[in-house]
């Protein structure tokens, strides 16, 4: 990502160093504010139960209760929920990547009447709130006996239901010169081969972006597991966390220190994935997101 231009109205090449330092300090302060809730979460996860109820609240626990994490994992069936979340997430990422690639390529590589109408219709579904389709979808799954399985969570992503990804990838593919397609066709390559050998390698940032977005969205999804999963054995992490809060039924009895421990653990994979993919990911958004 280049920023050789200082596109900031407050600073130009003549702005004093003092001003730049001031801005840097503001950002530092802002960072503290942003991280405060997270810090609170982690610190609370290390308290004892009476400490969480203390009034006035204590910032830092007297002794760090690291065993809270062990207790949370054991009592919360963490490994099972983690495995379930991972399963569903990988299934969705695979599905999204495959269908988005196919659809974006189709939208780009051919001149067909009605292509733009198809694209427009797909885009319109972005505006559709989930609630419009959820009840009939639910009925359909009931009829198919898919309730209480992972299928309602994974299968839609294999049928192009993530239009944002199709949109993003299409924008990216549009930037690839048509000569490439022609050359490959002349060489006798099949369409699928063109897709996999020409387009996909060039669109790696966009694909990574899609994978990361899908990962975050699915990992954090509460709505779909809430509707379709009834067996505790199948729960994903967000649902398991909600269940954990509901154990005592009332806010009084909730073991907040364990809840925070679980929330902290839940956050770690997402942060790791984002951190690793960060640079390419932001490139992906900026290069293709809006401007193309």
């Amino acid at each position, binding site marked *: 990502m280049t920023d050789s231009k200082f596109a900031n109205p407050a600073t130009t090449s003549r702005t004093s160093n003092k001003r730049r330092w001031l801005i840097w300090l503001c*950002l530092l302060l802002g960072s503290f504010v942003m991280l405060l809730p997270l810090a609170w979460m982690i610190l609370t996860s290390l308290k004892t139960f009476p400490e969480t109820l203390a009034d006035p609240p204590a910032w830092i626990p007297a002794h760090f209760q690291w065993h809270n994490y062990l207790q949370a994992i054991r009592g919360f069936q963490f490994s099972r929920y983690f495995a379930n979340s991972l399963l569903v997430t990988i299934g969705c990422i695979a599905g999204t990547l*495959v269908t988005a690639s196919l659809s974006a390529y189709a939208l780009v590589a051919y001149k067909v009447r009605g292509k733009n109408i198809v694209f427009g219709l797909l885009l319109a579904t972005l505006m559709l709130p989930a609630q419009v389709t959820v009840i009939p979808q639910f009925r359909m799954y009931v009829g198919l006996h898919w309730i209480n399985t992972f299928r309602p969570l994974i299968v839609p992503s294999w049928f192009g239901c993530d239009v944002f990804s199709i949109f993003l990838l299409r924008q990216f593919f549009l930037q690839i010169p*048509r000569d490439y397609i022609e050359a490959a066709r002349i060489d006798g390559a099949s369409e699928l081969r063109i897709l996999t050998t020409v387009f996909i390698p060039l669109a790696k940032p966009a694909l990574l972006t899609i994978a990361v977005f899908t990962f975050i969205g699915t990992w954090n999804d509460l709505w779909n597991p809430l509707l379709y999963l009834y067996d505790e054995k199948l729960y994903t992490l967000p649902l398991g966390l909600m269940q954990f809060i509901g154990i005592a039924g009332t806010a009084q009895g909730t073991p907040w220190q364990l809840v925070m421990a679980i929330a902290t653990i839940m956050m770690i994979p997402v942060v790791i994935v984002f951190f690793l993919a960060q640079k390419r990911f932001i490139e992906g958004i900026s290069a293709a*997101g809006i401007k193309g």
Partner: protein
Amino acid sequence: MQNALTPTPHPLDAVPPPPAQPLGGGLLDISAPVARRRTWFASESAKFWLMMTPALLGFIIFNVGPMLTSLYLSFTKYDVVSAPKWIGVNNYLYLLRHDPAFWPSVKVTTIYASCSVPLSLAIALLIAMLLNQRMFARNLFRTIFFLPALLPAAASGVVWVWIFDPTRGLLNHILASVGIAGPAWMQSTTWALPALIIMSAWGFGRAMVIFLAGLQEVPRQLYEAAELDGAGAWNRFYHVTIPVISPVLFFNLVIGIIDALKAFDLAFVTSTAAGAGAGGPARATLLYTLNLYQKSFNYFHMGLGAAMAWLLFLAILLLTAINFGLEKRWVHTS
């Protein structure tokens, strides 16, 4: 490569650029069907439709079909265990005239959207501008500001409930140390919605990243020229930055409004965990989608839920159409 200074093509207008130079010396024209096989299966059309099959199937099975069924259900009384019973427009009449929760939830959602969207965008733009220069640990800052957007509502929701707790929470603790008696936040009918708006503004990371991308394209020369003309920082911002990034601003605005109208997760988690019951005290945080969820999945008024869903969809369509209509007025393309 296109940038913000060239006209932003409307998605429906976008066509691939023409080939730079036809290979094979012009003997082969890409728009003609491949000459070797004459069956329809070899034509461009066939390949297109074949490749689009998964997405089209998904569109029909998971979107169009359910939409139409949902429209039908909105005219019935349906509680899942028995067959739907046709009752005409009674669901809509109940919602618009008798339901004590409908209009409050519309009001709550409108306030929520009209406050949280500008707030998030303003913060996102501000931080993006501050970040858009070389500095020490810039990548780290970028990650930190983006981080909250990565958290699941289930986790961040409970943390926020904790922070906003009237007696034990961090926020009132801080306010008390400067002498202000903090309100009851999630349990107060006046302060629950502002609390929710603040919580949602925390996730401005996505908009910030998109602004960062847009700001990349503002050429330095424009700022220098403006400065030479004697423009101060604010004038430079208003007359140079805003017009140039207006397409990006538009995008964030449209997406932001749609997301705000569809918002569910945070309101659900926070009002359940805060002990005031889902929807907050006296419906203070009863977002439209929350009302819909309760009616459909807690009390099984499925027909009513379908009617609510369709009303929401129409509202979103209308707002987006208005936005696109206004686009020509204030979004600059040069």
